[in-house]
């Protein structure tokens, strides 16, 4: 028989990859964190039957044996929240990767324990309340300049309320020192700058708000055609090689959220390295500060333990909620939710659960809903407006959108950016397909846009209609060739090309083009539609299409996106003026009948 433990402590009875069974666990709670074996491998209780508990272990279980001791910690998996999160990179269970490197070198050894936040470091705390004030959970009592970009508010933990008995004066404190004492109903309570929160529980809010403001991403096809609101949820599905990651990186770089949480969930190690290398060098287009000062990275790459991948997404969203509670707008990018769903599938299979579609557990839609519903625009407990926007990449096998993860994700998001292999093959990036994508937020954010550009709605509707008509015309062209079409329809094909090349395609690596301001977006689209209107009128007057195509300003329009910076809107106006002059000239020639092309 296996080694029998007689000292009464819980011990492992079976080990199968990341799933172990332990005996003597009748007091264990669901989702309680346990430590297994002499290395103290971190795990979580996922099932309790009698005194047998099933534990999912976040680290490699090689050479773990039946009989290994299991230690209960009495608390669910929680993260540390406080100054020092920004600019850091964590693994799925919030161990800082730089700290792990300092301890164990380039390779991640198991059983490594490093604190998420540096408890020695001193932060300059500035009180915002006085002794004697009544405070409730979530209320702001002080602030710390965490980075030059972000003022970190110190909040009363959500479950504490009472009267401030004492509060620290402005000065340097570490995270372990109390900065305030609150007299609660059950006695005095120390408030530190750091608090803990279980990752699987959403942080409380006062109420949910309607989404009214767009998350400006600087990506034309997204902002203009398929906008996402601050507090909204979007999915980016696409087969491999369609540019999900680059699109996510672009959004993380240029979105006008105040905090970015980027979760690399089961993806490539080098991609996280790229973010780490690039973000500190890139400037926020609005503040001119390095982007890293507002970014938190969660990296659980594909070769790191699968159970930690499952939890990484909750770790990320909890950090996001914490910053939202300070009244900030936060954007969460999860790349990729399919890998997370696969982790669920793998763990469910090891737990011998009955599978539903394609082996995924039946709880997949519930779990997806729980994740996406943690986003939203809210009034925080402190009464401020904050938001968490979620953008999840989906990697459907074979690029087939009918698979369960994509299908279920569609139910819980309102913005769908479908990446298309054909476009990616032609190196048209971002390869978001304009006919398969949709956004339900365009109505919500219309007012915001129209305060700046009153024709925004008209422009995008007309451009989208043109692209739809082009698709239908292409069907005809495929059958009988373009020559049978009248010039008026060929013009649509031509304008659609102009919109695709000059507006929808956007280079992530071009200094002028990587971020396109809303003003420039509207101006560009307006010129292109201007070209269409003038061309349509000319063709009606009998001018051949060749002359419209051959107008000198056409190549300027096509190159304007990268030739002109966001500040050179006057030069765009210049192109617009030349377009009209040229069209007037052609029209005149035709009216007078003096055209040499006649």
């Amino acid at each position, binding site marked *: *028989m*296996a*080694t029998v433990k007689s000292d009464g402590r819980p011990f492992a009875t*079976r*080990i*199968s*990859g990341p799933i172990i069974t332990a005996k003597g666990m009748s007091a264990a709670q669901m989702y309680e964190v346990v430590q297994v*074996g*002499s*290395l103290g491998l971190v795990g979580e209780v996922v099932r309790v039957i009698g005194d047998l508990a099933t534990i999912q272990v976040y680290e*490699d*279980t*090689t*050479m*773990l*044996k*039946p009989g*290994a001791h299991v230690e209960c910690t009495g608390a669910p998996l929680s993260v540390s929240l406080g100054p020092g999160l920004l600019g850091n*990179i964590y693994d799925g269970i919030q161990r800082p*990767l*730089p700290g*792990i*490197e300092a301890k164990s*070198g*380039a*390779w*991640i*050894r198991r059983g490594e324990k490093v604190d998420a936040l540096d408890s020695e470091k001193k932060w300059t705390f500035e009180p915002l309340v006085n002794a004697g004030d009544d405070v409730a959970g979530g209320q702001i009592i002080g602030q710390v300049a965490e980075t030059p970009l972000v003022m970190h508010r110190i909040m009363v933990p959500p479950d504490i309320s009472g009267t401030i008995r004492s509060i620290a004066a402005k000065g340097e404190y570490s995270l372990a020192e109390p900065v305030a004492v609150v007299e609660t109903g059950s006695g005095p309570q120390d408030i530190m700058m750091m608090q803990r929160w279980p990752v699987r529980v959403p942080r409380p809010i006062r109420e949910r708000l309607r989404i009214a403001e767009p998350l400006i991403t600087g990506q034309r096809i997204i902002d203009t055609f398929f906008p996402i609101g601050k507090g909204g949820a979007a999915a980016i599905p696409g*087969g*491999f*090689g369609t540019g999900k990651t680059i699109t996510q990186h672009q959004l993380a770089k240029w979105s006008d959220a105040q905090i970015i949480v980027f979760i690399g969930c*089961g993806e*490539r*190690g*080098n991609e996280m*390295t*790229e973010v*780490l290398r690039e973000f500190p060098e890139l400037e926020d287009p609005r503040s001119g500060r390095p982007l890293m000062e507002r970014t938190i990275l969660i990296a659980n*790459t*594909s*070769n*790191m333990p699968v159970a930690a991948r499952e939890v990484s997404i909750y770790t990320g969203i909890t950090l996001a909620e914490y910053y939202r509670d300070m009244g900030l707008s936060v954007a969460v990018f999860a790349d990729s939710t399919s890998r997370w769903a696969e982790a669920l*599938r*793998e763990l469910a*299979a090891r737990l011998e659960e009955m599978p539903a579609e394609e*082996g995924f557990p039946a709880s997949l839609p519930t779990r997806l809903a729980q994740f996406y519903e943690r986003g939203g625009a809210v009034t925080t407990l402190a009464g401020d407006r904050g938001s968490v926007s979620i953008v999840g990449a989906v990697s459907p*096998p*074979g690029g087939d959108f009918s698979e369960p993860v994509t299908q279920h994700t569609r139910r819980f998001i309102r913005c769908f950016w479908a990446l298309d292999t054909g476009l990616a*093959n*032609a*190196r048209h990036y971002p390869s978001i397909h304009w006919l398969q994508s949709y956004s339900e937020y365009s109505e919500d954010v219309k007012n915001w846009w129209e305060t700046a550009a009153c024709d925004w709605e008209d422009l995008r509707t007309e451009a989208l209609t043109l692209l739809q008509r082009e698709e239908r015309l292409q069907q005809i*062209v*495929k*059958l*009988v*060739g373009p*020559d049978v079409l009248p010039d008026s329809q060929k013009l649509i094909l031509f304008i659609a090309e102009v919109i695709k090349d000059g507006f929808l395609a956007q280079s992530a690596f071009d200094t002028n083009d990587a971020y396109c301001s809303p003003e420039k977006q509207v101006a560009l689209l307006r010129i292109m539609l201007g070209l269409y209107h003038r061309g349509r009128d000319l063709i009606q007057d009998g001018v051949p299409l060749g002359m419209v195509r051959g107008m000198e300003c056409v*190549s300027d329009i*096509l*190159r304007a996106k990268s030739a002109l910076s966001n500040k050179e809107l006057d030069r765009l106006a210049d192109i617009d003026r030349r377009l009209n002059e040229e069209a007037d000239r052609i029209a005149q020639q035709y009216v007078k009948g003096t055209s040499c092309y006649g």
Partner: protein
Amino acid sequence: MDNLFTGIEDRGLEYVGASRIEGPLVVVENVRDVGFDEVVEIRDPAGNTRLGRVLDVSGTHTVVQVLEGTTGLATKFLRTRFLGESFRLPVSRRMLGRVFDGLGRPADGGPPPLSADRRDVNGMPINPFARRYPREFIQTGLSAIDGMNALVRGQKLPVFSGNGLPHDRVSAQIIRQARLLDEQVEFSIVFAAMGIKHDVAEFFIRNFRESGALARAVMIFSLADAPSVERLLTPRVALTLAEHLAFDCGQHVLILLTDMTNYCESLREVGTARGEIPGRKGYPGYLYSDLASLYERAGRIEGSPGSITQMAILTMPADDISHPVPDLTGYITEGQIVLDRDLFQRGIYPPIAGLPSLSRLMKDGVGKGFTREDHPILASQLFACYAYVKRVRGLADVIGEEELSPLDKQYLKFGEAFEMEFLNQGEYENRSIETTLELGWDALSVLPQEELHRVSDELLKKHYRMKRDTGEAACAV
């Protein structure tokens, strides 16, 4: 690690008999003090030993996966010994130039390598924070790769192929010609063969010998007639050695894994034998994680001069790129080189498909300061124009070439020039990156200048072949 062995005194115990033998699995009962993933020595009735490892362990049952096949094993006479550690490989620089079997044992008649350094073949994940982003351009001498899908040092770039396509010749050529632009560093080669035929292995050995690479190559063979389960360890053995050579000895390692489809089939075989719930096409649900645990063992590490560049060859069953093996591989690797049957049948070598091929790390390894300023734009414009060629060809199939517009006809000519002059080259032709880029501009110059939307005026002025009669075919360079 060692403090996990709570019952050292039990080591060396030999257990007799098993309760069940099924496929590659053996279930042994009432074994004491066995760890998950522990190595097992199994003695068959004839007295020969085979290696296995523990897949599942509970107080009563221990499931052992036999790596060298279960043929001839009998429940009654089976003897098992648990070795008290997970699978380890002695690693040493002196393994270069040698041949090993799929489990890392010498197969060339030589002695086992002497080394006190024994590494767990499962490796450990590289901390993403400790990685160095790969960006040194590797010139392979193949225009289709250098020009359009450039490889960089530390990248993992697989070759997606089909049965009968010349993936072996292409990869042998890459290994022969790969070099850095400014450094005279030779790559050390780790070659892991999984389930390939003897003559294919022979082909590679001959190639290494001819190019003088044999002395800096390690070959690890688990050929088609070796037990299939052994293949599950073969790439891990190879990668463990590669990691030692790269990160301990500071060498630049090029590792070739062929054929990954065979590896995945072995994984499916074991999964089925264990009664696991199958995922797509019967492959286990953890295929992605398992493949990632191999592919992610490539790259560079901050502070170490070495690197691992990985090329995995896989044959797509029925040329289907959405098959789980290529599909999941594409999600993990940094791009893919796809071979195309149509090009191959038209006699174009290397038949590297223009559009579905991709190198994700190219953007950071080419251009000003790496290759040449015009490189990224040229590649992007070639892709865009070639994509249009494909559309025009589709159209021409329906309405006939005669009915095409003059511009579309010109595109067809460009397509022809691109395939025949740019893609096509000799098996022993080693093109410099400059030659490749010039050939690219030659092909583009078949098109009128206005069609090259992605190229700036400045670059057009510098590289566009003005004087050429664009109406002529672009064969003469």
